[in-house]
């Protein structure tokens, strides 16, 4: 059972939590025993069940501790299956949560939601502004994970989280794929899940960066130009991936860009391979900036081409956002014992329990009964 703190009122409790370094700097919902209990109940699981060990502290992220974070983040009980799946993914050994949280690089796990849980555990937004403010599920699911990483994992800036600058995605970083408007197979089916299943995919990445791509239906080279712009942005010379030649990369195609690529006869694999092909640098261009990349430093000549990723499979492509000129890329890190892979975990919705006393609007303060 989690230790209880006491305060004379919620205002003082909030100040105490800020003072203790238990918040992200913004106000939180005070995790009273009643609120936490209801969140645990909604999970359908025992509060003491560990979902995994979160680095760098290595402490167990129990359902109850995750519920505390979800309450603090302002999540609805409906979101718990997604939050728990995200915690499982980040605590997977290959995600290297200790190194991910401790590195000086600016990384945050982006949470990508696929499958029916996008609707039943949300709605998790996948359209206009899905990476921005105004979407409660996106905002509070990502924030829940961050509070678990801080309060269970023990990440504190400048003490145990050594990111030199951090980035805004460390407050919250969650979106769904717009499967309905995508011409491609949903992202999670690449990981062996059926379209009827739900999954989160997490990748420790830099902040998203916009890529402008003007599509011209009269230009037969338009699709390839689009892939070039996206690939060069993802593998840009300042990104870690350019110098490590590995790590996960994330590409968020807007539906118009995705449709243009599909009209050109490209399927998901073609798109990913095209981006991989363009996510490269000349050895001379890497040597011209500050690099420790031995591939570049030992290259026979400056025109040797060095890929920013090991294989197309390391580049995650999904469709989300409003339709228009811009897609997004998220380069990553490439370091750590497992070299910064993405991890997918099924969202288990069959355990979810509707909690008596929770109002239809999801308010956790509704009276019992």
């Amino acid at each position, binding site marked *: 059972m989690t230790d209880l703190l006491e305060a004379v009122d919620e205002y003082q409790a909030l100040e105490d939590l800020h003072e203790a370094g238990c918040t992200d700097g913004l106000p939180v919902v005070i995790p009273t025993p009643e609120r936490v209990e209801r969140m645990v109940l909604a999970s359908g699981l025992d509060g003491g069940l560990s979902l995994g060990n979160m680095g760098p*502290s290595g402490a167990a992220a129990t359902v109850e501790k995750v519920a505390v974070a979800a309450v603090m983040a302002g999540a609805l009980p409906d979101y718990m299956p997604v939050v728990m799946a995200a915690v499982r993914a980040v605590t997977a050994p290959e995600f290297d949560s200790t190194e991910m949280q401790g590195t000086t690089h600016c990384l945050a796990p982006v949470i990508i939601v696929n499958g029916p849980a996008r609707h039943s555990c949300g709605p998790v937004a996948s359209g206009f502004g899905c990476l921005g403010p105004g979407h409660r599920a996106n905002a509070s699911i990502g924030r829940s994970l961050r509070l678990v990483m801080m309060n269970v994992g023990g990440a*504190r800036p*400048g003490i*145990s989280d050594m990111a030199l600058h951090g980035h805004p995605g460390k407050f919250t970083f969650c979106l769904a794929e717009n499967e309905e408007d995508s011409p491609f197979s949903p992202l999670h089916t690449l990981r062996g899940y059926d379209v009827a299943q739900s999954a989160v995919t997490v990748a420790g990445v830099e902040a998203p960066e916009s890529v402008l791509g003007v599509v011209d239906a009269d230009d037969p080279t338009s699709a390839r130009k689009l892939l070039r712009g996206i690939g060069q942005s993802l593998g840009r010379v300042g990104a870690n991936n350019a110098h490590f030649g590995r790590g996960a990369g994330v590409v968020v195609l807007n539906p118009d860009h995705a449709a243009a690529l599909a009209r050109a006869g490209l399927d998901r694999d073609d798109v990913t391979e095209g981006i991989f092909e363009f996510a490269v640098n000349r050895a001379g261009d890497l040597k011209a900036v500050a690099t420790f990349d031995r591939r570049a430093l030992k290259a026979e000549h400056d025109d040797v081409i060095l890929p920013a990723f090991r294989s197309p499979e390391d580049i995650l492509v999904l469709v989300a956002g409003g339709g228009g000129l811009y897609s997004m890329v998220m380069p990553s890190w490439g370091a750590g014992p497992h070299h910064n892979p993405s991890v997918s975990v099924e969202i288990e919705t069959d355990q979810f329990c509707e909690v008596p006393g929770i109002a239809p609007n999801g308010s956790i303060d509704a009276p019992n009964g």
Partner: protein
Amino acid sequence: MRDGIETARQGLPSVALVTEEFWPQGDFVAQSFGMPTIPRVQLPHPVAGTGVESMRIIAEKVVPEIIAALEGAK
């Protein structure tokens, strides 16, 4: 820090080299991984990229401290 802890767990004399900027993180990791007294030697920050002469000066200062820490860890 974790490398030092892992080698110490294997029974090998170990000392972790930690720059002053990362000293608090070293404390946290040492506590978290159950070896709060793992021998450590503090380096100035930064070391990387400061040039050969700077590194030589740092090395001359810390080598005796590293040897002393390793002898203490035997």
